[in-house]
């Protein structure tokens, strides 16, 4: 029994870490700029494909490709924001339509180039660890450490640095922030960059443990969206806690009910919580 509980704790933590990265990025850009970025899942897979091409086609070192993959989607995110989202950012429905169109376009492009079967980014670390009789791969452990470290860094950045405080101010009251001399457009760009690299980092870690396919972008978007709604739209901490709830629900379901029920039970749990608390766990009524 102890082994079973330990297994759930270990596996749940790792799955949750990656989704926490993706969901926090999705939540961040919504919280600051009120943008529901439906191309967030696309950024998730794009980093992995870019990294894989760098390693397998150009022969770039794995670590360098990992960093370049993250930076690449950061830049893509900024370009997408500047060219397509920024001119329509006040029209929330238009933003959803445009970002969804971009997501579908990129998905079709990736399908044409790479096909639907999965490809993996080479693992940064090999081997396994034995934790209390449970074998767990080093890449899963590393992914969890990177995810937690990144989320701590994000928390420090948002709450302690000058730019972070400007992001917080903009998210609280955009007009007041402008009156205080904050360049809101610049803050939006920085936020989009951070949001994109969080998605990119999640995608690169995911493709090392599992495999990337263009369809995974939809899965990432659904997970990010569900987690963010559960945590409360715009609440960074809510998203992180919700990620762990989702991760553990999936692992517990696989353990006790079977793999085929995992996503069904996860979505049912989210709906049940939202029925009781429609604003999500940490959301506030506007």
């Amino acid at each position, binding site marked *: 029994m102890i082994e079973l509980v330990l297994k759930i704790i270990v596996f749940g933590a790792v799955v949750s870490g990656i989704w926490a990265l993706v969901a926090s990025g999705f939540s961040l850009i919504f919280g600051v700029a009120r943008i529901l970025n439906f191309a967030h899942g696309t950024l998730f897979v794009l980093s992995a494909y870019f990294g894989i091409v760098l390693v397998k086609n150009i022969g770039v070192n794995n670590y360098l490709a990992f960093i370049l993959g993250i930076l690449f989607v950061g830049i893509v995110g900024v370009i997408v924001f500047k060219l397509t989202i920024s001119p329509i950012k006040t029209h929330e429905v238009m933003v959803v339509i445009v970002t969804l169109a971009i997501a579908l376009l990129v998905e079709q492009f990736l399908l044409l180039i790479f096909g639907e079967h999965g490809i993996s980014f080479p693992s940064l670390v090999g081997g396994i660890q034995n934790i209390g009789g449970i074998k767990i*791969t080093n890449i899963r452990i590393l992914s969890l450490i990177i995810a937690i470290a990144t989320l701590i860094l994000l928390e420090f950045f948002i709450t302690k*640095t000058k730019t972070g405080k400007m992001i917080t101010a903009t998210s609280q009251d955009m007009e007041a922030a402008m009156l205080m001399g904050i360049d809101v457009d610049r803050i939006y760009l920085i936020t989009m960059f951070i949001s994109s690299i969080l998605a990119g980092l999640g995608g690169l870690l995911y493709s090392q443990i599992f495999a990337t396919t263009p369809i995974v972008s939809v899965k990432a978007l659904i997970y990010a969206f569900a987690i963010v709604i559960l945590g409360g739209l715009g609440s960074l901490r809510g998203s992180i806690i919700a990620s762990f709830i989702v991760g553990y629900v999936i692992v517990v379901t696989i353990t006790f009910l079977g793999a085929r029920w995992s*996503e069904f039970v996860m979505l049912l749990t989210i709906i049940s919580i939202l029925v009781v608390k429609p604003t999500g766990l940490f959301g506030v009524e506007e």
Partner: protein
Amino acid sequence: MWKVAIVVLAILVCIGVAAAKDKVVIGVIGPMSLPEGQAEKNAVMLAVEEINEQGGILGLEVEVVVGDTKLNPDSATAEFRRLATVENADMITGGFSSGVMLAMMETMAETKTVFLADASSPAHPAKVAENYEKYKYWFRISQNNGTTFAWDLADMLDFLNANGLNIKKIYVIRDEHIWTDAVMNDLKPLLEKRNIEIIKDVQVPKGYTEYEQLIDEAESLNADLIMPILAIAGTGDVLAKQWGTLKPKVMLAGHDLAAIDPGFFEKTDGLANYEIFIADGGALVTAPPTEMCKKFIEAYKQKYGHYPESHQAYGAYDAVYIYKKAVEEASKAGEQDPFSPDVVVKYLEKYDPENPIELTRTIAFHKNHALAWGDNYVRNWISQWQDGKQYIISPKTVANGELKIPPWLAEEEQKTPETTKATPGFGALIAIAGLSIAWLRRKTK
């Protein structure tokens, strides 16, 4: 009166000219974003190119039209109808996915189009047997029935046990799909006869990736073998990768469609080493069963720069050639319209187990139009990935390699759970993360 006769004659001549066949149209249908669909399309193009170079079919040039099922019954039936009625395809080949195939069979029956199909559910030939006149245009060309998959899997277990392994408990991971239900129905009694227990039967949906937990469970339940029966999930590579990383005390052997892809080893970063799979479709790049298969594989590589990405290529290539052969036989026998679907069916049926035809595989159809199974026809060869290469390891008649047990299972001292050291980069990354946090904390104070 004679004027009327001339007018009628002129009209008949005009109709005759208009209806005269000036080309043969071959349709290929499949999920075009998947390797299976691409392989089908590429193989048909190659076969048609070769046939046109040799003068076409009965002197007529052959043209290819392509339809995309998108692995969805609605798209598949709409595309099939387009190929049959708008593009006027004389024969359609392809398919993939039993559920999609069932839907397409209805459109096939309605349009009376010869369909040399891919998919493995026994439900398809059962329809031919139940309502022959309606479904007779359907023939299975790519691989055997799900029933025969069970025979192949049971044979694989016999082979492993005969080679020193003691497989008594198996952990099944299979597609949550109609085709694996058929396999399981036939596999269970075969396992009972062999006193082999299924300790767990896990169904996974399309795109499922959390295999580590399942591998861990299989090991903790003392399974001797993890048996994948995976095609639609599309994540056999993830299973192999996670199995190769965890190195559990459990063999990985079964039907993993992804493992047939010659690029599979590279896609899994070499972690698929020692995975045993049954080579669906009766052919492997490294062990072609016929001379035509050997030539086809090399021609495919020359034309596309890589080997066939899935076994569907062999079926699609054979489909074009067997259709050509049936039409030519019909013409030789003096049939008035050798391209008529009813006539073509009659001549395709002549290739029965008593009179097989050797193409890239040895093809013969049963009365229900299922493909004949056996060492002398088409079957799933028991194969293994070994150091980047695929080898057929059984039956002996076609084997080009021998079974290799994964070293972590073969060596007694390595039987205890292995804890490998992480590479130096692992520690370095943790240190970098720690230092970054410390630096940021200092900076923000």
